[in-house]
């Protein structure tokens, strides 16, 4: 037993010593062993917002690491420096802490909630004059807490766009070989030639933070080289955008208000329920069918009801109106007044009636989704689903994506061209009309697949609604005094 405890104590001592030693090795790295440094402070206002602030600060740290230009400083080091700074009566303790740690840039994050929206202010303060252009205060807003860290991370990734690797020469060997303080972490690859400000250099061997580079022109120790390789920000931004989209879809999912499988309910309502209700109550049936998806207190769109009722009436009465009510009402009965082409048109209008029911229903659905700020089922695969809906329903994909006017535009174009084509199918103009209808259908599918969503509450979350209302900066004056700058900007 004693032996067991003794061994544990020895282990702890051993590890403590090794870690201390590692720390000293790390802290002696001021001669340029590692990269430029960033300190990230999460400034917690109250307990409610503390978790979000910490999460945002951690995510920002992750993005800095992904981009590989600024090494995040250890949290414990930051805390220690902050304590020292607090005791020094400096004006801005965070900036003073950053200076104590010789950081290159400082990021201060504070998150808070106002009403339904959550905000995060990310203040980036360069402490190294080389990064003066990094100075900015970004305010991020979201109605979904989960998106705050992602949006803050997105801004940090954007900041890294076109930022080359700045490396220091650490050692000089024979044969033009130099040890530089940038490696795999910064995105350098072995046996790869990179352009620099003067000439190309070849990376012969990489470590995580160091590399052996063959540099043709002579360099001195501690000299800087700018290696023109850039972080893969597009890849990071794509991943972040996907995550923001995923969180937003989860937040606005209709699953929250309805029990059961909403995907199934949507398909059932399109294929069966809506057709049935429209047969019983033409026009208004489309609105009634929306309740199958479980909307709370839905209100019908009167324009949709008026339009769809008129369209259904037109489907049934157009041949009658064209012939002054001389032809038989039913398409399968041909009388002496009903020409063959009129009968074809009548058949087309009756057969295509379910398409109008469906277009009307999809439009009512879009209205309900917009009103209730909910997203339709399958929204994660919205492009495929929109394409599929447009394949079967004229303008269906556009309605599905919340673009109601465009949906009706395609509906009228396809139906009018198809009807005209059927009516004149034995003539060239009829055939051309059918071809045109096919072309519009293809365009409808493609447009539905490619177009962005028409749900503003979803788009708002994905957009970069960043503004920099207030920018505060510090700079040294001529007599060693500190000058505080305050800028208020507004868009016009």
């Amino acid at each position, binding site marked *: 037993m004693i032996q067991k405890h003794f061994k544990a104590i020895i282990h702890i001592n051993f590890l403590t010593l090794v870690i201390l030693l590692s720390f000293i090795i790390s802290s002696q790295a001021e001669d340029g062993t590692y990269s430029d440094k960033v300190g990230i402070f999460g400034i917690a206002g109250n307990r409610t917002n503390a978790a979000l602030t910490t999460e945002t600060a951690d995510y920002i740290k992750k993005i800095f690491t992904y981009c590989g230009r600024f090494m995040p400083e*250890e949290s414990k080091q930051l805390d220690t420096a902050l304590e020292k700074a607090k005791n020094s009566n400096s004006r801005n303790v965070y900036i003073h802490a950053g200076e104590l740690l010789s950081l290159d840039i400082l990021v201060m994050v504070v998150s808070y909630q106002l009403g339904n929206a959550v905000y995060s202010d990310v203040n980036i303060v360069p402490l190294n004059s080389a990064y003066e252009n990094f100075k900015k205060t970004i305010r991020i807003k979201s109605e979904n807490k989960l998106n705050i860290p992602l949006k803050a991370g997105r801004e940090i990734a954007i900041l890294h766009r076109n930022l080359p690797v700045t490396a220091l020469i650490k050692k000089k060997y024979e044969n033009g070989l130099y040890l530089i303080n940038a490696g795999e972490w910064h995105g350098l690859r072995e046996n790869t030639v990179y352009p620099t400000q003067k000439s190309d250099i070849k990376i012969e061997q990489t470590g995580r933070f160091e590399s052996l580079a063959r540099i043709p022109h002579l360099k001195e120790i501690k000299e800087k080289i700018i290696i023109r390789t850039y972080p893969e920000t597009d890849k990071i931004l794509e991943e972040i955008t996907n995550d923001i989209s995923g969180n937003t879809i989860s937040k606005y999912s209709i699953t929250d208000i309805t029990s059961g499988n909403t995907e199934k309910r949507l398909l059932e309502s399109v294929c069966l329920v809506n057709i049935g209700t429209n047969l019983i109550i033409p026009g208004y049936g489309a609105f009634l069918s929306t309740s199958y998806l479980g909307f709370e207190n839905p209100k019908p769109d009167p324009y949709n009801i008026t339009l769809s009722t008129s369209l259904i009436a037109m489907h049934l009465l157009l041949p009658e109106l064209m012939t002054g009510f001389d032809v038989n009402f039913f398409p399968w009965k041909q009388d002496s007044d009903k020409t063959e082409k009129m009968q074809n048109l009548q058949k087309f209008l009756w057969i295509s009636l379910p398409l109008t029911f469906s277009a009307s229903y999809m439009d009512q659905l879009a209205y309900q989704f917009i009103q209730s700020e909910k997203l339709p089922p399958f929204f994660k695969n919205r492009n495929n689903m929109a394409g599929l809906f447009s394949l079967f329903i004229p303008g269906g994909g556009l309605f599905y994506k919340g673009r109601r006017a465009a949906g009706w535009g395609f509906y009228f174009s396809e139906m009018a061209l198809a009807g005209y084509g059927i009516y004149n199918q034995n003539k060239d103009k009829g055939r051309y009309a059918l071809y045109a209808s096919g072309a519009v259908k293809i365009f409808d599918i493609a447009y539905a697949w490619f177009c962005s969503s028409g749900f503003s509450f979803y788009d708002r979350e994905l957009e970069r609604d960043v503004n920099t209302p207030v920018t505060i900066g510090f700079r040294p004056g001529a007599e060693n005094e500190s000058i505080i700058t305050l800028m208020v900007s507004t868009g016009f």
Partner: protein
Amino acid sequence: MKNSTQNTTKHLPGLISICFFIFILLFNSALYASKPLAAVTGVKSGNVRVLAVSAILEDQLINVVNTTGIFDLINSGLLKEQLVKHGCIEEECVLAFAKTAKINLIFRGFVYDKGSSIQIQLLAQGIDYPYFGKIVYQYTAGIPVKGLNLTAAEYKYICEEHAGYFISDCLREYKSLTYIKTSKDNNTYIDSDFPVNGKFTLYRFEESPEEKDLKKAGIVGSISVSGKNITITNEEIQFRENDFILISFDRKADFLEKVYYGRKRELVFNGNSSADTAIMIFSTVPLSVLMPVAAPLAYYRNSDYYGLGLWALNTLPYLYLEYDGFKNRPNTYEDSNSDIPGKSRARFRFGIYMCLAGGIPLIIDAFSNQMHYLAQSYQGTQPYVGHTASAIYLSLISGGGGLFYKGYRYHGYAYFHLHNFLLYSFLKEMSPGKSYNEQKGTYTKDSINRKKAYTWLGAFTLLKIFEITHVSLIRDNIKNGKQIDKGFAFEPVIYDYNNDINIGIQYTFSF
């Protein structure tokens, strides 16, 4: 004051180093070992929602590393405690620690909440040559959680599986630096705890000004090793102490992978029963006949709308052929004493095939895809699936049936189309049209292009052989989650030692 502090700082490492070495010499037996020294420095959670999963993953990672028997693993609990206590969390400090402690390989990871899934990222970083801190292997996978019943028990299985595959893949990539040593009686040997066998490239470090810098190594030649003994294959090679070879652990990696796959099969499948295969054989015809109705209903019941869409796009052309074959069957032409087109005879025959056996792969897909999805996340034991005999039978009688049965939808559809295309082409050649002779009142068969027919048959046979071999060899698709990327960073610099010619090898693989 500043100078005094600097001096203290300057001497502190030395003092600590002395203490450190005393401790090492007296107590830390791990550092005497010839096994590579490894450390799990923690699995961090991206947010509190996945804190529990990260703890489970860390435990499982430690267990798997221990079970390999390849590494001496530093007590992970103590290590983590000390790292946290001293604020050594970031990669920079952890690597410096590993380098100081002469650790060869460190493992760490991250867990992120992605809403409908959990993303795990596991990394292995090598400390000594040829890595110098670089990532040896990185494993990123998404674990689905939506619509699944996942308790701590399931998460434990899932984390163990991912840790197992990660370590297995990592061992396949990791090259352990192993020195040549000279004993007291001047015998040279390989300084390894493992039996090393085979032919190896012998490396030697080039002159390096300082021990801690990046070192380049050149190729000295190649040697054969058996156990610990070295055999020179080329007389001109003059090896010396501290030359080294890089040994890999491929066999162990294969073994680990087999173990984790085998264990999972036992957990999620219902055992290997020939009765299931018999049931499959007897139900082939009724299931195939019912396919046009049963398959879409099954997809719909399982909420597999993607499968339903694929079914509609892929099956409708064949259902049309079947329908047309029966509607315009040869009898209808015979009744009206008209010529029977070859196309009609071929479609009729193809229709009979589709009805009796050709539809089975799609009904299998409708059920097996869902069963494999549940099996992947340890959602109970799945009946009927997991028997290689059933898979071979299905591939024998239909196109892609075995692949669908093993859970590979895209492979299944590829074989399904190829099979049907070749079979229909063969049937078309073997079903010549029949011309009605009004005078004689009889039918005369058109000629058959036998060469063309046998070519189609040959291609069809080859496809079947290939498909059955594929089905026999491929594992069941029961691996949890989806591996997002796979990266290898082993990029040794190979120099010709005498002529200073360098040949770089950069191997990157991702999917």
